[in-house]
């Protein structure tokens, strides 16, 4: 084996590291627009799913423009904040702010059955990482019209079940309020009672994810309390 001097090794590694750095930053910069587009489509797709419209990456944008017409941002007092694009609000960054400075996005949608629906994004913590989703409410701003959830790294077959239709569909028709008292929807271990309007079944083996999801719903939706109470009909 040829002997290499320390000097050679230093130069070799420096050149290697610089080459790799240039290569990777170049690739990241060139591919970024495609990746951001994918995330945007993914977001639109999830929102459509929360109002019961199945979308594929190919038609998500068209369907989004068709069904989700309007979006705006609220503050925690339920007042509309002007000049903020609801679609680009990053919930995770908002949640780090003081409550009265947070932007709360709302999307108005009108599915084919003529219902006027609002979509609220939610984000929280699962067992291994962030979980998020969209909850759509009927025009009484109390009954859940649909829900969709997603996760980064929950356990497949256990916590990861939150993004299956079977779990998400249990939320349909559940109520957020008892008259004017905010209850949210509870995820109940061992199964909810058949006539429980505030409860859905937890996932067996996915208790921590289920609890995280319950907390996510309560924390995120309760911020809209003022708006929901003021505008219900």
């Amino acid at each position: 084996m040829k002997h290499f001097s320390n000097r050679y090794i230093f130069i070799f590694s420096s050149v290697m590291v610089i080459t790799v750095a240039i290569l990777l930053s170049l690739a990241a910069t060139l591919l970024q627009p495609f990746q951001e587009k994918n995330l945007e489509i993914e977001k639109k797709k999830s929102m459509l799913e929360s109002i019961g419209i199945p979308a594929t990456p190919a038609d998500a944008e068209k369907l989004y423009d068709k069904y989700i017409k309007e979006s705006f941002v609220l503050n925690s007092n339920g007042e509309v904040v002007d000049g903020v694009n609801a679609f680009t609000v990053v919930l995770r960054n908002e949640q780090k702010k003081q409550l009265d400075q947070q932007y709360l996005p709302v999307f108005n949608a009108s599915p084919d059955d003529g219902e006027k629906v609002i979509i609220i994004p939610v984000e929280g913590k699962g067992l291994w990482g962030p979980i998020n989703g969209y909850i759509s409410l009927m025009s009484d701003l109390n009954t859940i019209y649909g829900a969709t959830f997603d996760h980064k790294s929950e356990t497949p077959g256990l916590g990861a079940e939150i993004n299956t239709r079977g779990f998400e569909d249990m939320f349909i028709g559940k109520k957020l309020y008892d008259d004017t008292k905010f209850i949210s929807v509870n995820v109940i271990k061992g199964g909810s009672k058949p006539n429980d309007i505030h409860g859905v079944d937890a996932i067996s083996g996915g208790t921590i994810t289920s609890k995280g999801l319950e907390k996510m719903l309560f924390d995120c939706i309760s911020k809209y309390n003022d708006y929901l109470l003021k505008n219900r009909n």
Partner: protein
Amino acid sequence: MSTQEKEPMFSAKNVKLFTAPLGRDNPITIQVLGICSALAVTVKLKPALVMALSVTVVIAVSNVVIAAMRKHIPDRIRIIVQLVVIATMVILVDQFLKAFVFDVSKQLSVFVGLIITNCIIMGRLEGFAMANKPWPSFIDGLGNGAGYGIILIIVSFFREFLGSGTIYGYPVLEKLGIYNIGYENNGMMILPPMALIVVGMIIWVQRSRNKSLIEHK
């Protein structure tokens, strides 16, 4: 260029470099490497296929890069150099998947990143590319990637077919009307332990067909 040398491009030796890892020198069933990802990404055919392709690209390209530089890599930092090459390739592949096959990239999640730690790749770089020319190294990379991929595809075929009743997402059993006569999917097949059992069965079949592979104490 290796093409201008005496040895033809597809000499028997080179062809063997490709075929050996498919069968009697398979990285998963014989060398028992890369099991972790083989368990994780084989629930459905599509992610398994993408994973197989990704790993093949990473091994083949890394092998060529390392083989081309082999005389200039200082011995003392060779493992670091190999890791840098693998990591770079994996990040590039990951970025490409995120940009062009987003849904699959979501299913594969962390496992693309974990290709970096796949022992098959380190093994080929250290064991083959460091001592061979770029062209044979390329074939060796392709062969080992394919050997890994073929097991992934077999395992995911059975897991998807028996666990979800579909083949590459196409609901075969539903179309055949098997469910109407009381058949149900085996939910166990979706869970990771079944991947291990299926891999075990492949090993069993392979060794009972080729007795020379059986280790004697």
